[in-house]
């Protein structure tokens, strides 16, 4: 137990120094750009200040983005997990949907723009659609393989105990596939997050971090843009490192896989 604690503590310290590293590089880069080249490259604290400036509405932009990302991700997770489970359990359905999943996986997020524009035009629906389609493929794939990789002997044991289909699903299949499902959700969330920002730049309207970032081209308000970027990174880090990472950690620790 003790060394597990040490390990997580080490991990936390490692992450902290990693974040300090990012800040250090930023500061050095900004200092060089400013002093040597006389360019208006903002320092981290200036970006943070711009972020908190109420006239910039940055938090509003961030809220709008987060909401879209959340909706797209929840949509992708629910559809993806259900389809992944069905594909994992039924070879017929797997053969039927497999090519579609491969195609979904191959298409880069931004290539969805034409279809999105035709079907959804500009705005929320368009952005959420793009997030959903780019997040869903890894979720389906990981869920499916998680289910297919459950050890046969465990399923045989379940059979000899004559577990009901419900119990087999909730006590054997789902927990067996859980680590893989979570890793699919992680990749899906990251994919969705990346496309969120670019989608907002193209098909977004009036609110959103991507939109704000793009607007800074015209307003030349680089500090606000950097503020937006910082916020994007912080949100991404929190979701990935705090939420998913600890969920994953919890599951593995319980099974003695750490």
């Amino acid at each position: 137990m003790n060394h597990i604690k040490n390990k997580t503590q080490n991990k936390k310290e490692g992450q902290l120094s990693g974040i300090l590293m990012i800040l250090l590089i930023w500061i050095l880069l900004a200092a060089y750009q400013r002093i040597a080249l006389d360019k208006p490259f903002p320092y981290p604290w200036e970006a943070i200040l711009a972020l908190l400036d109420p006239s910039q509405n940055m938090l509003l932009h961030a809220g709008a983005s987060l909401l879209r990302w959340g909706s797209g991700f929840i949509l992708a997770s629910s559809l993806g997990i259900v389809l992944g489970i069905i594909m994992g359990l039924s070879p017929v359905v797997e053969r039927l949907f497999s090519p579609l999943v491969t195609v979904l996986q191959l298409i880069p997020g931004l290539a969805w723009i034409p279809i999105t524009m035709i079907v959804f035009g500009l705005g929320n629906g368009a952005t959420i659609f793009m997030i959903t389609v780019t997040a869903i493929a890894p979720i389906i794939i990981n869920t499916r393989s998680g289910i297919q990789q459950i050890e046969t002997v465990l399923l045989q044991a379940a059979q000899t105990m004559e577990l009901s289909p419900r119990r087999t699903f909730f006590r054997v299949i789902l927990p067996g596939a859980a680590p893989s499902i979570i890793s699919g959700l992680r990749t899906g969330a990251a994919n969705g997050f990346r496309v969120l920002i670019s989608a907002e730049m193209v098909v977004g309207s009036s609110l959103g971090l991507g939109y704000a970032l793009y607007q800074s081209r015209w307003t030349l308000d680089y500090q606000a843009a950097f503020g937006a970027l910082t916020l994007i990174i912080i949100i991404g880090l929190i979701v990935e490192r705090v939420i998913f990472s600890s969920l994953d950690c919890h599951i593995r620790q319980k099974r003695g896989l750490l």
Partner: protein
Amino acid sequence: MILEFRGIDHRYRSKESEIHALSGIDLKVSEGEFLCIVGSSGCGKTSLLHMAAGLLQPESGEVLFRGKTITGPGRDRAVVFQESTLMPWLNVEENILLAMDSSQKNDQKEAVANALETVGLRGFDHAMPHELSGGMKQKVSIARSLVMNSPILLMDEPFSSLDEQTRARLNREMITIWEKSQKTVIFITHSIREALTLGSRVVLLSVRPGKVIGDWDLSREKPSVDSIPFNTLAQKIRGSMGLCCPPKEHTT
């Protein structure tokens, strides 16, 4: 007669090869028997046990449980597998509860405690499988099979991965469990010593195809472990297995 194998023949086929695993197995198991099936690796012991469990359909022939042909797995035939089949995400108690019929609701906790007591793991209710040693895991598997209250226990080399001392201890406990529970046990092993220690009857299988080539009834006169008759019988079985002759890889 609790279990009967009738004219079992089984081949595993793949694209390149065909393995004749079992051939002409006729075997009757009486109520209350502790039947040990011995044979070297790959002779079809697991296949035979899986047929009794209903996990494998024989290519020809049939297995009958109390006169009815077995068509699938069932709670009336509890299985302890060769490897650990505890769910790694459930603790000991939850694993055992999993095997329990939902109709036995009120006394479930008590039954779990009793089963753990029987296998000598009292107080380990909340341990996770990965916190247990190999022997302890197999004990939990045995506890799990006990709560199913099945008249027969099918055990596939449950102790083969354990060290000699642990194995000897678990063998003693197994005999106690069998004597107390009045269950029929089919116990697979490749150790002749283990078979003679445990069994009230020992059946020997040959390799590829697996055939019954020896059947010893020890119920009336069981030689005590490591006594002279014990060793003489062990020597005889070893002889029938061809262990004195060429190594088993070359037997066809």
